[in-house]
């Protein structure tokens, strides 16, 4: 092909399919669940995460691929696979992943839980008399009133089984009529009740700290009560996943969207795309479900254990097992911002780099809160993507508007999970007098930027916060992110221009420091990568370190391959999807990829470019994904103050030195943990925790007036002023 010779680095063989790469990521999380060195309850959490991740993956990605197949869309992906081929490959992989999930659960976690005093009654048939009595009463009092059993016969059609809901399917027959037809009946396990039922200590397993049973077991145990006029022949849990998401995943190409719109009529709305059933389900029962939902065999998952493992997250929260969890980490105060400091004064002195969750997110909340009350503040502008339910930031913004400040908020309603939630507080902000922009047509606003305009004695000064993570005080305790507080005039001007653009005004004539997607960011990255390649060719030192969540943009990967071929040393820290392959002779020999999966979700995006000896460090809300670079509003900002640059480089260095939580990509595309023999054991996340604690303590000690055991008398006010 002509294309090949023209673009040698675009050979599909050099790329990994993004869905398969994603599954590898889920597998790495599963690896954590299987890691015996990790506290038991943390492992539960990881397993639960693999399950909820997989659910979302099906609803968004697999659904999307199915759409493509239905629409007859044949375009090949980055790795040269058609949608059909991708689905096929995914099918094998997901089945394997699920098998691994349950083998982890059954063989590893269950016995360990039992040994550590948490007994799970896995089969209702094994209840003791006393337990049965207790649960029967629980069933009558709590469960029965909310159940809606439904039977199917000639007069009653097959009921709608709700997406992601857990159900118990049964085969029933009219009582006393041995020859009557077998009918299908189903009941949804109510999501309003807790999935885990803890039994009272006295009737629990002897010696166990806690004995629990899952709700569906209790319902199954009492299934006769639901169909009084029938004999229940068998009952088994099942769960389906539907392609019910009307919006098509933003990652897909625009031409696909058009194609699908055209085909919309052909699309089977709410089509089931996955069925999970209890392993050993009655064949007749399965056949009915399968036929009704028009599922093919490869979409069926036979589950040797409880369906929907996300309940493990609830189990993690059970009291009494603290010894089996990692002690809760408290985000540390930021040394540049002592408790009684005026945040604006401090920023004026010095830019401040924040590293969450090692350092507290409080300064960011405080930044908005203080601005809301400060009489000198004229305006506050902010982009909000996903905000916590009871966000102090929202409250502060509302207060600011009430205080007569001009408050502009861009609320991204297209954030996938919590649109309804967003609308509620967006309305609230509007009521308070804020100017609310409900997103931009055709673009998702993913950038995280806050601008505070303050009128000071010597004129307008703009304070800006730029971040890699959302303005969400809850997730800021779990996600690793970085943020910059600054009042540099150049960035302030750019920030004003950003909000002018978000308000629908024209682009600025030029940018000082920031680069914005979708218009400029990709070119900027390509330029920065290309510059390293040029430097390498010119015999200069050339080095790229980039940390992000996902890497799947073809143009960027191509540029990286070219840079690698030119001799640039490239170290990538990519948590999730990575379509780039390492170790291809002549293409990517100089590239390494590592993924860190730890207790905190790696989320910061940091980009380092050697630039022939005068390094540049950037941070961004954007990954190297087409959706970030082409269909979202994202911001890239430089970290220029020397000490902060050092700090950012330190973050990258520690992550590159991690020997405990890092998985390194191999030439065959697989990921392997590092062989620890003879190496210093380093866990990057733990290191950052320790460093943050130490730094906070040092700052505290410095401020402690009693530290020298000598009191210092205050000098007279007048003398001080004279000085």
């Amino acid at each position, binding site marked *: 092909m002509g294309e090949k010779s023209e673009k040698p680095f675009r050979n599909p063989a050099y790329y990994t399919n993004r869905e398969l790469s994603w599954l590898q990521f889920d597998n790495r999380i599963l690896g954590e669940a299987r890691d015996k060195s990790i506290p038991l309850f943390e492992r539960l959490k990881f397993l639960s995460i693999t399950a909820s991740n997989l659910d979302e993956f099906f609803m968004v990605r697999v659904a999307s691929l199915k759409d493509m197949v239905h629409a007859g869309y044949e375009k090949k992906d980055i790795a040269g696979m058609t949608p059909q081929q991708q689905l096929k490959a995914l099918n094998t992989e997901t089945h394997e992943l699920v098998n691994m999930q349950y083998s982890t659960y059954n063989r590893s976690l269950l016995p360990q839980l039992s040994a550590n005093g948490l007994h799970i009654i896995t089969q209702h048939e094994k209840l003791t008399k006393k337990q049965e009595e207790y649960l029967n009463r629980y069933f009558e009092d709590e469960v029965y009133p909310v159940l809606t059993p439904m039977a199917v016969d000639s007069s009653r059609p097959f009921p709608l089984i709700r997406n992601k809901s857990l159900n118990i399917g049964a085969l029933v027959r009219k009582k006393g009529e041995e020859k009557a037809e077998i009918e299908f009946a189903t009941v949804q396990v109510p999501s309003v009740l807790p999935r885990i039922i803890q039994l009272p200590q006295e009737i629990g397993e002897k010696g166990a700290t806690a004995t629990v049973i899952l709700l569906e077991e209790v319902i199954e145990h009492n299934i006769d009560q639901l169909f009084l006029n029938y004999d229940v022949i068998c009952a088994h849990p099942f769960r389906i996943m539907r392609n019910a998401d009307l919006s098509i995943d933003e990652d897909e190409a625009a031409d696909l969207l058009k194609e699908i719109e055209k085909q919309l009529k052909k699309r089977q709305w709410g089509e089931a795309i996955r069925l999970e059933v209890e392993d050993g389900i009655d064949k007749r029962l399965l056949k009915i479900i399968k036929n009704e939902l028009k599922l093919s065999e490869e979409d069926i998952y036979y589950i040797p254990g409880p369906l929907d493992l996300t309940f493990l997250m609830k189990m993690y929260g059970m009291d009494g097992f603290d010894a089996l969890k990692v002690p809760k980490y408290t985000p540390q105060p930021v040394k540049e911002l002592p408790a009684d400091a005026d945040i604006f004064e401090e920023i004026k002195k010095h830019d401040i780099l924040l590293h969450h969750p090692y350092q507290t997110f409080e300064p960011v909340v405080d930044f908005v809160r203080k601005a809301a009350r400060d009489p000198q503040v*004229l*305006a506050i502008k902010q982009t909000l993507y996903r905000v916590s339910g009871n966000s102090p930031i929202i409250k502060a913004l509302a207060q600011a508007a009430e205080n007569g400040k*001009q408050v502009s908020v861009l609320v991204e309603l297209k954030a996938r999970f919590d649109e309804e939630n967003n609308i509620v507080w967006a309305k609230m902000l509007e009521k308070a007098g804020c100017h609310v922009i409900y997103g931009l047509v055709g673009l998702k606003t993913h950038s995280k930027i806050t601008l505070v*305009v303050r*009128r000071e004695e*010597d*004129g*307008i000064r703009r304070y800006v916060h730029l971040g890699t993570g959302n303005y969400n005080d809850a997730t800021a305790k779990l996600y690793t992110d970085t943020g910059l507080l600054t009042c540099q005039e150049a960035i302030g*001007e750019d920030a*004003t*221009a950003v909000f*002018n653009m978000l*308000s*629908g*005004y*024209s*682009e*600025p*004539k*030029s940018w000082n420091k920031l680069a914005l997607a979708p218009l*400029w960011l990709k070119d900027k990255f390509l330029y920065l990568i290309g510059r390293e390649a040029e430097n390498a060719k010119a015999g200069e030192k050339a080095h790229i370190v980039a940390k992000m969540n996902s890497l799947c943009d073809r143009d960027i990967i191509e540029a990286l391959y070219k840079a690698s071929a030119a001799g640039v040393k490239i170290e990538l820290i990519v948590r999730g999807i990575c379509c780039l392959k390492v170790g291809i002779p002549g293409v990517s020999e100089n590239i390494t990829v590592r993924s860190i999966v730890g207790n905190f979700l790696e989320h910061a995006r940091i980009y380092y470019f050697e630039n022939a000896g005068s390094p540049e460090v950037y941070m961004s809300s954007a990954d190297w994904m087409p959706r970030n670079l082409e269909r979202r509003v994202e911001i890239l900002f430089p970290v220029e103050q020397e000490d902060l640059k050092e700090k950012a480089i330190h973050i990258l260095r520690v992550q590159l030195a991690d020997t405990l939580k890092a998985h390194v990509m191999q030439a065959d595309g697989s990921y392997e943990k590092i062989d620890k023999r003879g190496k210093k054991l380093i866990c990057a996340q733990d290191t950052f925790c320790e460093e943050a604690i130490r730094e906070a303590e040092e700052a505290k000690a410095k401020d402690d007036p009693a530290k020298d055991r000598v009191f210092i008398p205050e000098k007279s006010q007048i003398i001080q002023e004279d000085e």
Partner: protein
Amino acid sequence: MALKTFAAIDVGSFELAMKIFEISPRAGLREIDDIRHRIDLGTDTYTTGKISNERINELCEVLKEFKEIMRTYKVNAYRAYATSALRETENRLIILDMIKNRTGLDIEVLSNSEQRFLDYKAIASKGEGFQKIIEKGTAIVDIGGGSVQISLFDNDSLITTQNIRLGVLRMRERILSMQVKPSQYEKLIEEIVDNQLEILKKMYFKDRVIDNIIVVDDYLSPVMQNPAVCAGGGYMTREDCIALAGQLQGKNKAEIAKKLGISEDKVFLLFNSVVLMKRVIECMNAKLLWAPGVTLCDGMVYEYAEGNKLISPEHDFEKDILACVANISKRYMGSKKRSESVENIALTIFDSMKKIHGLGKRERLLLQIAAKLYDCGKYISMTSVGECSYSIIMATEIIGLSHLEREMVANIVKYNRIDFPYYHENGEQLGMDLASYLKVAKLTAILKLSNGLDRSHKQKFKTIKATLHEQEQELVLSVDTAADITLEKGLIKPKAQFFEEVYSIRPVIRQKRNYRKQ
């Protein structure tokens, strides 16, 4: 607080822009926000003569938002100026009233010369770069939606300024209506432009050497200012400009837009500007092109800051206006000596009468201009000098003067020669409001008197002193001359009559004979 916040709103043909500035004597002008909204008012005006309702609604909505932004910044003052799109609209007054009612904003429509003068001030506000570049022969090419203004500098001052109606939006409408292939555009633009440039060159530039060209526009300037595209930081050589025109030819819009970092709908307008500049450069044989990247808003704030004495200007703009006027006078073969004499007398009288007339610096300038042009009509006819002078002045762009001011000057010159009409009789002929009418009357009175004192055209009143004796209601004009001033003394009566009528002060001539000097 010494700090002032000022908002400048420019209702342009293709864009609605507002800039917010902070002004302080110490730090000068500091731009703190630049908000622009694309709105094509020009196409409506240039094709139909009216602006559509949709556009007006949009305009009002955005202006309301601007007002809100102004409130946020707590601005102390604002100016809102509209340019050719509104100027040439038939329903201009209705639109302005509508805007006022809906947004509370007062929009003033700038005359072409006022607008260009502001652009010029904006360039001058760039200080050093400007002073340096105009040391050599320089032309400013100010490209607007409706027309292009070309101004010429020599030796640090403005020589002439001419307006050609080849604005980019107007050109676009013209070219698109011709239905030709895109590949022919360049040729077409060149033909239209060349035609006008030739005339300009022959009539006004003559054999001046023009090394530098300063361009002010909304399309080429951003490109030249963009460091990613143009390395010169706003400067471009003749060759680069010609090369750029070549690059634009034959490429598709999307490609150009991406390469130059502009939006696609500006590509054609950019192309237009570049071809125009290329022709100007070639025609004038210039070597260097400079785009200071200023907009009308920059000129507005400069004007405001200067007017309120918040900054001290580096460039003397009044000198530019007068230099320009002197050139007009020269063009119509006015006698420099004579007009200088009249000017001298007029200004002396004006200054001595301050207490009575209460007029300011600006009116003094108008009088000075009128004195410089007081007999330019002679070029056409010896008998109806007044009417001819009036026509010449009204047809000649005087940069820095508003239309009304030009009208005032023309009238002063005209009624210097003929009887002044009373407002209730046919004052409406003057086409101005009462206040301006009265100013014209006062200034005319002074000019008439001054002209009378120089009746013999022999500059006998070179050294005149004017002293106001309020109690006697006399203005004593003492002349230090040995020459015979019988003619002047005799002829002064009718001239002084009008002066007396206006001021109720009687001019009296006293001659001091200084024989020693003779």
